[in-house]
């Protein structure tokens, strides 16, 4: 199975567009279908495709497991941090209106940041799940 040229070249062509599509889903989530969760899954699927085709060792060199778990935690920090900032600015927990002077702008910003947190967490945990399951020692090497 040394000559999987078609798979390698196809993945090499497709992976940038998968990443781009994930970002599109992320930032278009305010206006249409999409959002942090879906974008995170799509972003993670690009790395999972890479790991499937080029092997787990290469994928771990591109995106180490530590970085993935760090992303999973960082997203929660972003999410909760937005809530704490709104608390400090005198609103309720995750009341985005107080983030800016104009409540509409504040809600825009709040949704964007919270979705970014969801995106980071989902991306990190999906990749970490995949690494953990794919890296299990089985009977065959």
């Amino acid at each position, binding site marked *: *199975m040394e000559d*999987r040229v*078609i798979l390698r070249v*196809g993945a090499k*062509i497709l992976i940038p567009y998968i990443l781009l599509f994930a970002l599109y889903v992320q930032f278009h989530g305010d206006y249409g279908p999409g959002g942090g969760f879906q974008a995170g899954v799509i972003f993670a699927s690009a790395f999972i495709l890479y790991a499937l085709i080029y092997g787990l060792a290469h994928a771990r060199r591109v995106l180490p497991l530590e970085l993935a778990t760090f992303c999973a935690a960082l997203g929660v920090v972003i999410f909760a941090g937005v809530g704490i900032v709104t608390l400090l600015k005198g609103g309720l927990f995750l009341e985005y209106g107080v983030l800016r002077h104009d409540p509409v702008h504040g809600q825009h910003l709040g949704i964007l940041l919270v979705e970014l947190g969801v995106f980071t967490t989902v991306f990190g945990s999906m990749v970490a799940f995949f690494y953990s399951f794919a890296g299990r020692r089985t009977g065959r090497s």
Partner: protein
Amino acid sequence: MAIVLDILSWAAIAGGLFFMVVGAIGVLRMPDVYTRLHAAGMTDTMGAGLILIGLTFQAGPTLVAVRLMLVWAFLLFTNPISTHALARAALSGGVEPFRVDMEGDKP
């Protein structure tokens, strides 16, 4: 003009549905993995492609049409690759291709 677009789009969608049905029958009736893959691959490229083209005629010159064409291009890329990967996996897994013995002697 609208009626021409409608006729074109319905023709494309009907053609796509025809290929879908043919592909489904092929998946059910073909004898082994490789011939079934042949039928299934045709379902995606021809069936889904023609349906997407028909929907593009309905969408008109909008951003939706661009997105539909992008989906179509993505399908044209990924479907042959996935069919190829499946066929290779079956071959390296030791699945023998189906053969009709023309000599007539029983195995």
